[in-house]
């Protein structure tokens, strides 16, 4: 590294004009790139969709044929969902991935447990989440500790609701 540094230093004396022309200011002169947080975060599916056909083909070719076909089918199935549903799922995805790793794990575990509940309990939990989403975020913990909530659900269901409430949008 030091040898390279001295070569660079020497080159800078003679290549100073080239340095100024190629170097520091030019990217700033163009339209500044938005910080990632300024727009809705792109999911890996969004990024894949923005690739050219050739790039998508090359990426898919990395997979064994059977896996490639399965992934293609899954992407097609996802893209056939109504636009609103796709948007909602992506929003949920982004909210999930904004959570710290431990909380993400808790949410995933909760959803797994949720899927094992009976249909009527799943519906009750969904309704609770829907109602909770209409409650301002600072008031949600109070609601989740209220007698009405505690009496409606058993301990495991309460934990499911609490974990999944992390995905609800702030209000």
């Amino acid at each position, binding site marked *: 590294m030091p040898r390279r540094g001295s070569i660079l230093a020497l080159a800078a004396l003679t290549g100073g004009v080239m340095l100024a022309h190629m170097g520091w200011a030019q990217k700033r002169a163009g339209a500044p790139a938005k910080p990632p947080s300024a727009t809705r975060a792109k999911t890996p599916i969004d990024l894949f969709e923005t690739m050219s056909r050739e790039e998508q083909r090359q990426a898919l070719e990395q997979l064994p044929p059977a896996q490639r076909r399965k992934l293609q089918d899954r992407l097609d199935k996802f893209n056939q969902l109504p636009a609103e549903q796709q948007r909602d799922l992506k929003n949920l995805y982004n909210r999930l991935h904004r959570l710290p790793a431990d909380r993400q794990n808790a949410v995933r575990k909760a959803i797994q447990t949720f899927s094992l509940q009976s249909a009527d309990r799943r519906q009750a939990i969904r309704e609770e989440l829907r109602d909770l989403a209409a409650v301002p975020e600072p008031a949600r913990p109070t609601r989740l500790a209220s007698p009405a909530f505690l009496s409606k659900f058993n301990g495991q269901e309460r934990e499911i609701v609490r974990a999944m409430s992390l995905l609800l*949008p702030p209000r």
Partner: protein
Amino acid sequence: MECSSRQAAERIVAYHAGTLDPHAAAALEWHLKACPVCRPLSAAQQAVWSALDIWQPLPISPDFDQKLFQRIDAEERLRWWQRLSLPRLSWRPSVSLAGASAALLVAFLLRTPASVPTSPAPAQAKFQIEQVERALDDMDMLEQIGVETARSPI
């Protein structure tokens, strides 16, 4: 275990934190129904837990990331300049001027990532595809909870 012991208190804290395994939690819930020592302690801990829950954070400044990037860029430029700092210069050229300019060009190519991707190296392409697969797994999982949840007003 002594109900007035520190371990009992820790167990109650763990219960309210949701970190007790289901069997231990169930056993504790049964115990709390009747224990005159643990029940009020648990109620007090629940009060603390609920109270701490009301303390929500404030919104983050919208320019937080931008300021961070500016600081990082400023620091990167400082380090780059430091590598070219004058005290390290030697007036006796160790390579030809043409070679030095070529070295500078190569240094730029190596220092700054290519802004125009040609085609992804296989390792990056596989990484992208794995991310897409994982994202689809997550979407399938999230679909279960009912999309209507996501349609709540923001």
